[in-house]
């Protein structure tokens, strides 16, 4: 009997954009063969491993888990705790919240009254203007953080302004950017948003030097890659902050890092951010709430407590591909912040996996 045993999975169609997902998932597609090379009908008909995997995915899958906001356990369930909770609510909404709004308003007044003059009057003195604008942006971010009673503990050496370096961090919400920006004025790469956020992006963030991208545009990646390279080459530009996950994840997991940040030929400085959920869940579930609602939710909570670790800069090791480099950095960040890694591309939140993925299985 001829045993046509061409049944090993080949990695000949290695998609350079994505790492070998087969390494993570158990392969049920390989048809088992008896050691003597004799294939029985039982082996051919038995599709149970593949079916089990499919049913397993229906029952629970690691991708949906990344974006689940886990509501905290209600603690106000009995007659003693409930009035205490009510008192807390009144305190938060009637006293703390207005105070915070006041603080924020003052901050904006100071900011705008300094930023606008500086921006227009110092048009000729670029360097001076830039450094003042940087400090102002750092200041308004501090005001934002104060408006949520943010308690941020920074660990590790503060980012320094050096050429040929990028910073990468895990992403939970847009406030990640504000938390990091209050310490150092980074240039950041962001999705252009509509509404008042977009307005802020195009006016103030322009001054620190930001790069925009659009998830829905197909050719966008190449344009963005080029802009990134240009920015990093420029000596005067602010250090670049990139969130390689590409989307907000719920601060318990990390999804796959996009390799764009890791093939620029610079050192990569990982930054890990972990929010303390006891005070508030900082995960911005963009499918469920708008950014405004998210900010209001933060402003009516007790505090936003988080830890930020600035980790050791990493460079591409000889013989390492950018994808492996990205994985290594993701490992470092996940270990530091206590996050679990999942092998999924964050963009699957917005679109279906393409047919070529199914082929490879």
């Amino acid at each position, binding site marked *: 009997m001829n045993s046509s045993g*061409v049944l090993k*999975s080949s990695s000949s169609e290695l998609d350079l954009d994505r790492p070998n997902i087969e390494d993570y998932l158990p392969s049920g597609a390989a*048809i088992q063969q008896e050691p003597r090379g004799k294939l029985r009908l039982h082996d051919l008909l*038995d599709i*149970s491993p593949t*079916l089990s995997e499919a049913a397993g995915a229906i029952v629970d899958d690691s991708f*949906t888990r990344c974006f689940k906001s886990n509501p905290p356990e209600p603690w106000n369930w009995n007659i003693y705790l409930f009035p205490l909770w009510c008192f807390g609510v009144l305190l938060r909404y009637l006293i703390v919240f207005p105070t915070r709004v006041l603080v924020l308003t003052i901050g904006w007044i100071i900011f705008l009254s300094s930023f606008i003059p500086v921006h227009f009057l110092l048009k000729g003195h670029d360097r001076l203007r830039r450094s003042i604008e940087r400090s102002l942006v750092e200041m308004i971010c501090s005001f934002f953080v104060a408006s949520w009673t943010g308690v941020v503990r920074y660990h590790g050496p503060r980012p320094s302004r050096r050429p040929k370096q990028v910073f990468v961090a895990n992403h939970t919400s847009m406030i990640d950017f504000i938390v990091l920006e209050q310490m150092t004025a980074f240039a950041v790469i962001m999705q252009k948003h509509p509404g008042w956020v977009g307005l802020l992006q195009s006016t103030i963030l322009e001054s620190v030097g930001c790069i925009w991208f659009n998830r829905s545009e197909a050719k966008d990646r190449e344009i963005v890659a080029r802009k990134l390279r240009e920015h990093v080459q420029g000596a005067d530009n602010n250090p670049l902050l990139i969130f390689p996950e590409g989307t907000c994840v719920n601060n318990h997991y990390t999804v796959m890092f996009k390799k764009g940040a890791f093939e620029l030929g610079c050192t990569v400085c990982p930054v890990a951010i972990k929010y303390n959920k006891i005070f508030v869940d900082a995960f911005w579930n963009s499918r469920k709430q708008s950014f405004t609602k998210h900010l209001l939710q933060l402003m009516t909570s007790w505090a936003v407590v988080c830890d930020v670790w600035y980790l050791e800069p990493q460079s591409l090791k000889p013989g390492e591909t950018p994808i492996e480099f990205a994985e290594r950095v993701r490992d470092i960040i996940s270990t530091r912040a206590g996050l679990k890694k999942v092998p999924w591309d964050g963009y699957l939140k917005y679109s279906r996996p393409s047919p070529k993925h*199914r*082929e490879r299985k």
Partner: protein
Amino acid sequence: MGSASSMLTQYDIEEVQEHCNHLFSQQEIVCLYERFCQLDRNAKGFISSDEFLSIPEFVMNPLSQRLLKMVDGLNFKDFVAFLSAFSTKAGTHQKVELIFKVYDSDRNGKVSFKDILEVLKDLSGSYMSDDQREEVLGQVLKEAGYSKDCYLTLDDFIKVLGHSGVKMDVEVPVD
């Protein structure tokens, strides 16, 4: 159980448990309900194909389209009944029956040579040519005592797969 309300009463749980022949514990049914509501985004009472296809792990499975046909549009009771074949408590007969149904895509109670070839194609895709598959299948069927034009029934499947037991279990994560 018509529309998916966010509360599951004890009666509902017992009804579902009855329907799936007690193959899931009450805790597991509660967890499956949470999962069902998570997948059924607009609380229609059933999960549409689109919503199943938003699970990347499911889409990557070579048999996802076949399973999708069987599970699309089921209400919660039938959803649990479908998944009960994957319970550790389910018998080999029930598991083999599910496998048979996956092969028998036209639901005529018989699995033809062509049906088996198609499933094999889904699984081995680009690794084998159609001729290679036909040859292997024809040979293996002959050795098992079936000809190419023979139709396999459920009893045949049980005969071939049943004696060594089928390991097809999925654990429901109970938190």
